[in-house]
């Protein structure tokens, strides 16, 4: 009897403590939430209203100055600005370039990161550690600097072109093409993918790999049926973050890409600045946003899956 009382007392104390902790946690989470609501959430709502043709109130000034503004025609707004962007002859090319660069670069980044992570996990040793450390270098080089360096490396008087010229070959000038953009975004995205995936691979237990080896499984078999499935969630996270980052990139395509078609990040800036069409740029931003949201669903799905597997939900 006394024991039972004690247990309930301890339990109620624990309940109180958890409640207090969760309240504290809530207040600790408040500042970032408030910052996001007031400085990001509100402007996004204003921008959405602007894209639908609400040009009064806080959107009045930008509508006054911008060119080709489509004001709302019904109570909920208008889709004229969206139509105008979609019918713009630049848009299909830009969208295609953005998606192609995103898909190609993300695939290459993930393949490279997987290779590096598997090499480090299975073979390991000093060389692998040095390689992983080296692969993190791009994290510490500002993107503007590396974009400029890549441009001087691949342009008409660049290193490769000069070397090939001396042996009598004509190496193509890569700058101002999507190829250079792919090279550039791989450089910037690789470190994060390697960090993410190799840490996922490190958590695969040795026992599983060794027992598979004992049962006679080959290298590819171990990778395909043990390592990749066990590191699946980190791989999906790396993929989604890489793809979203590449889709919204600006500096690399601005320095290395063609004038037209270009990636949407650069085009948004062109429409906002030089062409003075703020409504169009907002519309494009929402189109990129929805594409990125599509990728984010993949991320959420992977998280739910892992939660299911570990029995959290």
């Amino acid at each position, binding site marked *: 009897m006394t024991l039972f009382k004690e247990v309930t007392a301890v339990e109620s104390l624990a309940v109180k403590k958890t409640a207090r902790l969760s309240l504290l946690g809530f207040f600790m989470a408040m500042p970032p939430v408030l910052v996001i609501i007031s400085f990001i959430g509100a402007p996004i709502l204003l921008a959405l209203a602007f894209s639908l043709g609400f040009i009064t109130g806080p959107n009045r*000034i930008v509508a006054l100055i911008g060119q080709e503004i489509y004001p709302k025609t019904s109570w909920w707004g208008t889709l004229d600005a969206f139509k105008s962007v979609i019918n713009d002859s630049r848009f299909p090319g830009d969208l295609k370039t953005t998606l192609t660069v995103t898909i190609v670069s993300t695939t290459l980044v993930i393949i490279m990161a997987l290779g590096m992570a598997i090499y480090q996990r299975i073979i390991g040793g000093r060389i692998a550690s040095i390689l992983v450390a080296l692969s993190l270098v791009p994290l510490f080089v500002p993107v503007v600097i590396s974009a400029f360096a890549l441009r001087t490396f691949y342009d008409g008087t660049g290193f490769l072109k000069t070397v090939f010229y001396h042996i009598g070959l004509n190496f193509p000038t890569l700058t*101002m093409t999507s190829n250079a953009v792919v090279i550039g975004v791989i450089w910037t995205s690789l470190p994060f993918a390697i960090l993410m995936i190799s840490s996922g691979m490190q958590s695969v237990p040795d026992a599983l790999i060794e027992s598979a080896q004992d049962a006679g499984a080959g290298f590819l078999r171990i990778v395909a049926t043990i390592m990749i499935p066990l590191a699946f969630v980190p791989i999906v996270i790396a993929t989604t973050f890489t793809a979203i980052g590449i889709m919204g990139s600006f500096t690399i395509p601005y320095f290395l890409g*063609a*004038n*037209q*078609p270009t990636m949407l990040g650069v085009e948004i800036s062109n429409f906002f600045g*030089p062409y003075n*069409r703020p409504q169009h740029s907002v519309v494009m931003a929402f189109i990129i946003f929805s594409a990125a949201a599509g990728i984010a669903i993949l991320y959420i799905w992977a998280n739910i899956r892992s939660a299911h597997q570990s029995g959290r939900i």
Partner: protein
Amino acid sequence: MLKNLLKKKLIGAFALTTITALSLGVTAPVSQAAGTTVRLYISADTNIQDLWVKTLIPAFTKDFPQYDVDVTFDRNGANDAQTLAKITAAVATKRDPGMDLIDGGISTTLGGAGLLFPLSYTSLIPNLKNVPKVLIANGKGAIPYRASTVLMAYNSKNVKNPPKTLNEVLTWIKANPGKFTYNAPSGGGSGASFVVTVLDSQLTAAETLKLQTVADKETQAKWAKGWEILRSLNKYTYGQNGTYPTNNAGTLDLLSKGLVDLAPVWSDQIASALKAGTMPKDIKVYSITNPSLTGGPAFLSIPATAKNRSAARALVNWVLTPAAQSLIVAGNMNGLPVIPVSKLDTEVAANISSIDITTLRPGYYSTNGNDMKAAWANEVPGKL
């Protein structure tokens, strides 16, 4: 009712944040020297920043130690749209926009929108009397203070007889594939000038005049022939794949490395590069004719509600003195003066005596210019 109230509150909150942001930005310098700090906003290329920071401001503060100048630099006017919005909002609500003097392409737009301190009080800037009336009229309240023009640059090692007229230039480009380029108009004025010149060559004088003075969509439709010509150059410009350098510096870079032999460049930028030795001595410049490339005055502007506008006027008045104009011409800037050449130092005047700034061919009115940049990206690059 409720909706209106909410709207008012939102605007209030918006204004409050703006004011807080502004006061955070300007409190420090103002509290030290109220009213005597000129907050100069430069929306231009780096050579203009150098002109102010290294040449004009030191000379001004030496002559007038009671003033000082606080510079904000916006490279190539990348934030022009926001700056315009800020000033428009500030003048509409009779508040200080956070800048007293603006140097950049937006000056004339502000003038056209009636947001500037009216120039009818010329007595406040007495030196304006030396500036040609036609230039002042073009400014619509903005103050012309220097001029520059776009010239054709060529590599004299490879080109013995550079093409003299626009038509000869177009023929030359096709005869020398890969040896000509101009930068994307959205990235810099030298490329924009070449594009405008090709477009104008297919228009009547009256149509060109319209595009230079008022927003005009109908006349823009007549650009079609010009786009046709520019598109036909895609196979012959540098790279031969319909790509163009991003900005003025990109053109100069290709020219200095010997990758192109002919390109439109700003008169002041090429002169500075030649003087600094970053451009080989073989590169020479000249004016083409029929039509010529564009050029014209650059304008300063004082927003109507600028807090330190009297200090700004003192700086403007000083910039228009013969001494300051000589600095613009002779220093690293290599600009053109807006006062008669005869008033400058004789040594400085000798180099530029042949140029008459009142006859420079102006570019487009700003909204037409924006439309031209947008349309160029739509019509020209990548279309083979």
